[in-house]
């Protein structure tokens, strides 16, 4: 019983990161109708950003978020100007296809770049507090992972606040709802697209940092995280960031439960099965509009 509870707690903790990884993808897909399959590679770059800051300058990985997030924001803006800005000029059907193509090309290039810069080895950031645990009865909760869950919730809450209170946040939501109507009311939708893409990339960078501090990073984690994020986006539906976070937690716990029931190798499969079932039964997702 304790073993199962322990596994479920660990699943919940990684679920927070699934939610954070998905929030960026959901924002970009919801607003731009662009499917960025290189999202996992952007997460991977964020992880290496933190790794570099720690290895070269000795920056604490949690503190490095303060540098990684603005850096990712800038990277996102550059990617929008250089690549994805061209995609949103096409109509919706062509957007999805073109963004897939550019995403695959980008994923390939970023993966190769990461291997070149950091080799194919798995990296993690050693800290003095890495082994600290919070003991609750028989259960041990790793403090670093608990911190990543809390930070993920804080970041997503901040985003939700930005989207509901900030002037440009409202513009982003209006564009997601109906870009033609948004255009008619005088909203600069290109600016809204740029902001959505940059914010989505910043969330990916933050997720990458938290993944690297609590787990590890390697150049090939990209596709895996893109898939996890896609599963959560489909599970939760578009339009609610808090819903996306809850979707992440659900996936994390479901994976842990299936690993406990059917054995470790099957933890991934159950997530994908959930995903196909949700798509077939409720395509708009649990919290989708």
């Amino acid at each position, binding site marked *: 019983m304790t073993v199962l509870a322990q596994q479920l707690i660990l699943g919940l903790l990684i679920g927070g990161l699934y939610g954070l990884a998905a929030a960026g993808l959901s924002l970009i*897909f919801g607003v731009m*109708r662009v*499917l960025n399959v290189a999202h996992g590679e952007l997460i991977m770059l964020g992880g290496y950003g933190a790794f570099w800051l720690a290895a070269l300058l000795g920056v604490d990985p949690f503190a490095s978020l303060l540098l990684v997030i603005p850096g990712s924001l800038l990277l996102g803006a550059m990617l929008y100007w250089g*690549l994805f800005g*061209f995609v949103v000029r*096409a109509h*919706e*059907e062509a957007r*999805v*296809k*073109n963004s*897939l*193509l*550019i995403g*695959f*090309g*980008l*994923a*390939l*290039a*970023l*993966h*190769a*770049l990461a291997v*070149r810069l950091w080799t194919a080895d798995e990296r993690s950031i050693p800290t003095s507090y890495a082994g600290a645990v919070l003991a609750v009865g028989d259960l041990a909760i790793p403090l670093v992972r608990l911190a990543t869950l809390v930070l993920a919730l804080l970041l997503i809450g901040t985003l939700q606040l930005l989207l509901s209170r900030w002037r440009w946040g409202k513009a982003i939501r209006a564009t997601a709802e109906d870009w033609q109507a948004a255009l008619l009311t005088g909203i600069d939708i290109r600016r809204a697209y740029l902001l959505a893409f940059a914010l989505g990339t910043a969330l990916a960078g933050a997720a990458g940092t938290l993944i690297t501090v609590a787990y590890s990073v390697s150049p090939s984690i990209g*596709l895996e995280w893109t*898939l996890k994020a*896609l*599963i959560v986006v*489909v599970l939760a539906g578009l339009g609610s960031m808090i819903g996306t976070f809850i979707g992440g937690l659900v996936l994390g716990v479901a994976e842990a439960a299936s690993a406990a029931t059917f054995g470790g*190798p*099957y933890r*991934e*499969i159950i997530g*994908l*099965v959930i*995903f*196909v079932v949700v*798509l*077939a039964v409720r*395509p708009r997702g649990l919290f989708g509009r």
Partner: protein
Amino acid sequence: MTAAGHERRWAVAILAAFGGLAFLPLAGPRDDLLNFVFLILLSITLAESWNVVAGYAGQVNLGHAAFFGLGALITRALWIAGTPVALAMTAGAVTATVFALIIGVAAFRLRGAYFAIGTLALGEILRTTVGNVLPEISTLPAATIASYRLSVRYYLALGLAAISVIAVATLATSRLGLGMRAIREDEEAAEASGVGALALKLTALALSTALAGLAGGLFAYYHISYYPAHPFGPHWTFDALLMTFIGGVGTLQGPVLGAVLYVVLKEYLALRWVDIHLLIFGALFVAIVLLLPGGLVQAAERARAVLGARRRAA
């Protein structure tokens, strides 16, 4: 010139080129050349098979590797057990098609991006499952390796590439292909004018996955050893997708030209810049997508239109 005449002329040209390639093994070339042309031919089959669903029926299938992998899995198992390879490959293709039809009924309820995401997940489910159930590498028995003849594989690849080109050419000029294109342009309008969208999409998927299953069977017959999960890897889908879009989606000649350019470019870059070839390849690929959105076929048409206008002006 009508569109159908256009497709037919391209089909004849491509098949003539294949006819020329049939003489290649007779010239006694080095094995690496034969292997290289084999790779191009296998890529042509894979790209054309993906093109049927994406180019004609307009559905972006990101789980294509699942059907390539199933073809490989079944063919390998039956062939090693002693079944003649032609029969084993047929069984592989049939399995892939039956599986596709079962999945297709559910998956085609999804539209646009959701179909793409759903099929991507499907491919990954199969890859993970096969990787878990069959983690050991599959190697041919010593007796089979001793009697291994590359030219047999080469001719099989040539035949398969020819079959896929003929199949797509026939489809493109048929009523069936017309109905599929109507779905691609506007599914609701097509339904309203009496096109049975689901049946046609399933037909496209069946043809596509049968070809992919055969290509997978060829892969299993060609390789001496590989991990059973390898042909299920997502890169098979991405390769087919990239080749088709580089060449020109929804055309007969596009995937063929795309496959040739893709394989040649990738191998050249791999030889020239060993370390960073994928970085260059990825960047180059993004550049092609941005600069030539309709692929090589559309770029050639545009160039011809510009030259024609200039000639008329002169």
